[in-house]
């Protein structure tokens, strides 16, 4: 970071606080999720226990999916697909989160140390940011947002299906239903709080006064958007929890406690 | 002595606050090559501190408003001592100046129908202040700054050089306005009788000296607050323009009128004096003493009795229904409120840190407070750890503004007696009379900044190239020697043996203390006499102010140079205040508490005395050391520092049609019978 004319301070930084804590924590959190989700996505097993389907496997788009009654399986991809069907659909939420303006900050800081923290020098020689391939692809975030909205709709549908019991009878609720409900709410709030969404809904307008409805929507989404980082983490945890809950049911660790 | 760098421009503007930038824009738009010189970085001028708004009778909120009403309010606020023509021009032109800002990109708060919103303020009959939250000054500066950048971009396109016709010399101090050498061979330079020839200054960063030659120089340097201990003013406010004018031979008027803003922060000590905007009261904030009483109702003076609410209930109703109720007395002109707070504190009913309570928390929701007074909320939270949405602020008077300044021609802003010198903004006197209304400052900057720029440009345009005044080599050399004095303080000491080398910081603190204690908000004859005594002592010591180090960004040196200006201006204030044996506006005499109609006809004019003036108030110490080593300016550097001579001048009669805007009942309070009968 030194150029001849700047103040000659050899230290990479002079911060005295624990600046490394936040990037280390987000790196650790993301790493944990990556390990867990990789295991679960490739497992190709224990993802369905009626009436619950793991969000990792929904919608299930290959021939090799477990049969789920009224469930989100459409064998669009066909029977040539040999590995876990989760891989097909996970590309979309993965892409959404990978290009998300919040996650970008988290992993640029946590994994790339670019920068590790404010006013702490970067360890590399050159930096071009998002001006070139591949990082210029971050600009397609809004398309992943559209896709993520579709996925959120399907997961909402899954949540509706969760108001059945194990015998597919309607009007029942178990602990799993609550887990799914919470997950659906968090996924929706995370998805809607997206910066691209905020832009599409109203941010792109020059004159709010001519579009009162979109202005109001923009205002609401703005409030959600201020919590985008929190929602990103909450929904990440909730989606993993929902999957883990289904996994536990599927391996028979316990029976879903039903309320009615 | 090495030759200093010289440049030639058409118009030089000293100061880059609202008035300076507006003047520069105008001069440049008139086609003149314009140089702006400022002590801080471009865009940091003290104007950013203005919070409440710009007074302009656009009538966006109340259609009853027009320039006549604004004129009337301004004259009342100034207790009729204002130069009527300045007040008239100001009231007439302010709306255009505000609208023009919009076309340069300013974004004021809006009314529901999309016009510029206007807010209430002390002394203004109608909601009149165009504002942006409580950071209007910042908006003003930024808009002017960006307009200058826009003009520079134009020049870039045309000439390939951003600074072809408009350049900002930032972080530079001007120490002298130089005049043409007197052809008769008399005293040259600053003391000469010729036209303005340019300025002498130094770059703060490098310490390098420079001369800029120009036929027109606009002073827009702001005020003098740094001579007082408790002040809302920044370090830049050392009265430079006032002193430059005096030293160039131009008189100052009304210097006894110093406005103490009623509400400055009183705690913690390090921020004591920082402003709490009047909008707090305009938007519903009330003043209470330690008994919880809204004491302002006890302090409505007779001249205002019928204009202000007599009960809390009526005052409260006014915020909602201003047409059928009178405004609460918290919104009296600033001088009245400041004195009232002063009295409450003196009577032992003050707050723990020696102020009174200013409360908005019980009158507005936290949300409203944060929206309408964001920077106040921020300021108290950050600096005093006080949450104004939940608890009252502690406030007390703080030195805020000097009404006095360079005597100017109202229409052209030309300084009296020095051809080529102009002044606008706080450094100019006359516009605000004895007391300025809140919001009238920003409009003053724009109205007279533009006029100063316009007429400075015209003068420059009308000066033929071969007629341009030239700065004499000797004058530049003398100015340089003067600026370098603090580095040779030890040698001076050795030659005159008059005392030890003085620390400029110590001298400054003593000056501030003296002015604050002795020429402050309430004044007495004995105290002011004592102040003049102390000033004389400080003056002698200031000649021995010495600094260490070198010229590159050396704050001690800068202060040593500024001391000359502060001492000069402080003497004007003290001398004029001692002379005026009445109380009016920003000048309150304990020994002469009443306003005297006879005094309304008198402006006190300060000038550098030509002969050493020894009087009873002045100790012999003054005559002592004449600073050596400055042949060209010896008659000035040595002697001028202690010599202000005061002169009474009759105020010009107010034009009859303007007088008719007032009821006779009101005029009798201000004008003498003789004036009324005319």
């Amino acid at each position, binding site marked *: 970071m030194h150029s001849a004319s700047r103040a000659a301070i050899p230290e990479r930084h002079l911060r005295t606080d624990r600046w490394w804590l936040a990037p280390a924590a987000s790196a650790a959190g993301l790493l944990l999720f990556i390990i867990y989700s990789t295991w679960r996505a490739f497992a190709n097993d224990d993802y369905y226990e009626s009436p619950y389907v793991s969000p990792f496997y929904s919608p299930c788009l290959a021939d090799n999916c477990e049969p789920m009654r009224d469930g989100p399986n459409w064998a669009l991809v066909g029977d040539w697909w040999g590995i876990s069907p989760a891989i097909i659909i996970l590309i979309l939420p993965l892409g959404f989160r990978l290009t998300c303006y919040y996650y970008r*900050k988290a992993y640029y800081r946590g994994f790339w140390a670019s920068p590790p923290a404010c006013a702490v020098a970067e360890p590399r020689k050159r930096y071009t940011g998002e001006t070139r391939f591949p990082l210029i692809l971050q600009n397609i975030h809004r398309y992943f947002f559209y896709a993520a909205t579709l996925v959120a709709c399907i997961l909402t549908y899954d949540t509706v299906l969760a108001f059945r019991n194990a015998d597919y009878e309607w009007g029942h609720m178990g602990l799993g239903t609550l887990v799914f409900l919470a997950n659906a709410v968090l996924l929706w709030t995370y998805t809607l709080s997206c910066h691209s969404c905020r832009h599409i809904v109203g941010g792109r307008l020059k004159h709010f006064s001519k579009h009162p409805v979109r202005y109001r929507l923009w205002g609401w989404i703005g409030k959600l958007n*201020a919590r985008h980082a929190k929602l990103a983490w909450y929904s990440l945890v909730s989606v993993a929890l929902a999957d883990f809950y289904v996994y536990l049911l599927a391996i028979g660790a316990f029976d879903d406690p039903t309320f009615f | 002595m090495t030759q200093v760098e010289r440049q030639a421009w058409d118009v030089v503007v000293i100061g880059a606050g609202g008035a300076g930038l507006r003047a520069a824009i105008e001069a440049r738009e008139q086609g003149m090559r314009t140089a702006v010189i400022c002590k801080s970085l471009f865009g940091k001028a003290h104007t950013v501190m203005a919070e409440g708004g710009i007074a302009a009778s656009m009538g966006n909120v109340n259609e009853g408003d027009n320039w006549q009403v604004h004129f009337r309010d301004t004259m009342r606020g100034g207790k009729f001592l204002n130069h009527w023509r300045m007040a008239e021009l100001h009231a007439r032109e302010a709306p255009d100046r505000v609208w023009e800002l919009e076309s340069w990109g300013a974004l004021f708060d809006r009314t529901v129908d999309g016009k510029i919103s206007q807010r209430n303020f002390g002394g203004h009959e109608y909601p009149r202040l165009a504002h942006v939250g409580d950071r209007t000054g910042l908006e003003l500066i*930024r808009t002017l700054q960006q307009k200058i950048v826009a003009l520079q971009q134009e020049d870039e396109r045309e000439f390939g050089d951003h600074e072809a016709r408009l350049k900002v010399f930032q972080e530079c101090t001007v120490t002298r306005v130089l005049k043409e050498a007197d052809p008769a061979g008399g005293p040259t330079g600053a003391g000469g009788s010729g036209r303005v020839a340019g300025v002498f200054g130094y770059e703060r960063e490098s310490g390098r000296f420079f001369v800029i030659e120009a036929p027109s120089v606009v002073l827009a340097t702001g005020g003098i607050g740094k001579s007082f201990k408790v002040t809302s003013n920044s370090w830049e406010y050392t009265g430079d323009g006032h002193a430059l004018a005096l030293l160039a031979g131009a008189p100052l008027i009304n210097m006894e009128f110093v406005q103490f803003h009623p509400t400055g922060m009183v705690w913690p000590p390090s921020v004591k004096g920082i402003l709490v905007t009047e909008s707090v009261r305009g938007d519903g904030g009330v003043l209470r003493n330690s008994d919880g009483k809204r004491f302002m109702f006890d302090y409505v003076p007779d001249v205002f009795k019928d204009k202000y609410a007599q009960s809390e209930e009526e005052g409260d109703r006014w915020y909602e229904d201003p047409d059928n109720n009178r405004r609460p007395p918290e919104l009296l002109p600033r001088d009245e409120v400041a004195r009232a707070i002063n009295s409450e504190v003196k009577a032992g009913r003050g707050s723990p840190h020696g102020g009174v309570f200013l409360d908005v928390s019980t009158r507005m929701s936290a949300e409203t407070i944060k929206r309408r007074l964001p920077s106040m909320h921020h300021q108290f939270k950050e600096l005093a750890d006080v949450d104004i949405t939940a608890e009252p602020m502690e406030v007390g008077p703080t030195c805020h503004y000097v009404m006095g300044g360079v005597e100017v021609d109202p229409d052209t802003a030309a300084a009296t007696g020095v051809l080529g010198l102009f002044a606008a903004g706080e450094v100019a006197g006359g516009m605000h009379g004895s007391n300025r209304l809140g919001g009238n400052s920003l409009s003053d900057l724009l109205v007279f900044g533009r006029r100063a720029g316009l007429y400075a440009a015209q003068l420059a345009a009308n000066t033929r190239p071969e007629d341009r005044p030239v700065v004499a080599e000797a004058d530049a050399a003398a100015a340089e020697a003067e600026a370098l004095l603090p580095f040779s303080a030890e040698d001076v000491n050795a030659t005159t043996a008059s005392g030890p080398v003085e620390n400029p910081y110590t001298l400054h603190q003593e000056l501030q203390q003296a002015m604050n204690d002795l020429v402050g908000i309430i004044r007495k004859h004995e105290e002011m006499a004592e102040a003049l005594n102390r000033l004389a002592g400080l003056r002698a010591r200031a000649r021995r102010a010495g600094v260490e180090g070198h010229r590159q960004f050396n704050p001690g040196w800068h202060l040593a140079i500024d001391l000359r200006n502060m001492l000069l201006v402080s003497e004007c204030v003290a001398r004029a205040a001692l002379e005026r044996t009445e109380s009016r506006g920003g000048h309150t005499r304990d020994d002469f508490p009443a306003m005297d109609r006879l005094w309304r006809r008198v402006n006190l004019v300060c000038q550098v005395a030509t002969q050493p003036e020894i009087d009873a108030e002045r100790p012999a110490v003054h005559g002592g050391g004449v600073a050596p080593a400055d042949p060209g300016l010896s008659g000035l550097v040595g002697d001028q520092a202690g010599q202000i001579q005061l002169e009474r001048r009759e105020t010009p009669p107010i034009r009859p049609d303007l007088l008719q805007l007032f009821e006779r009942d009101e005029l009798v309070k201000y004008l003498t019978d003789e004036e009324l009968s005319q």
Partner: protein
Amino acid sequence: MSYQAHFKVWRGDADGGGLRDFTVEVNEGEVVLDIIHRLQATQTPDLAVRWNCKAGKCGSCSAEINGRPRLLCMTRMSVFEQSETITVTPMRAFPVVRDLVTDVSFNYAKAREIPAFVPPADLKPGEYRMSQEDVGRSQEFRKCIECFLCQDTCHVVRDFEENKPAFAGPRFLMRIAELDMHPLDAADETGLDRKRAAQEEHGLGYCNITKCCTEVCPEGIKITDNALIPLKERAVDRKYDPLVWLGNKIKRRGQ
């Protein structure tokens, strides 16, 4: 209530320098700038520091305290332990002039590169009508006091001097956002596309939205969320989104 604090203050100039130790009195309610002033008045009269309003309104006294870009006048001493050594250095992204004073001309150069507000051709002064909801966004950005802390902390130029020519920095990208969101800016009519220019000429793509600018902003402006990201999305509209491109094409055809 007063105590003796330990300070390390960087002193020097472009030719070199280092941290110098000081022990100095601190009283209740003081901010770091007060302490620097006390050093000037009592120990080092030629210590260079730039300051002005002392109330967080002018943005002159930017420096780095314990390694973090901050305003000296808005950093209260009470946030530090009495035993703590407080390190004060000049801003590290700009050339140093002397001691705590840096040469911030980079920022003024960048300011000149941003095309100014274009007034609408058909409106005279006084005829401007704008509603509050339309000016709100740009007003937030106009709260900027130009302390340049965001420019100082932004790793794009702080850590890579060579990026300076290509990158305007958060302050001036925000200025582009402000003008692009100004309800009456008529840049479009003159053929100036601010969205495209932000990406192509002012280096918006260098920003990797790691939010340090927002973190250091003393005015609490949400630079990243409200200015930079919306500007990126606007640039996407122009450059990377075929649907928006198509939509605009059809709309223009329809008119």
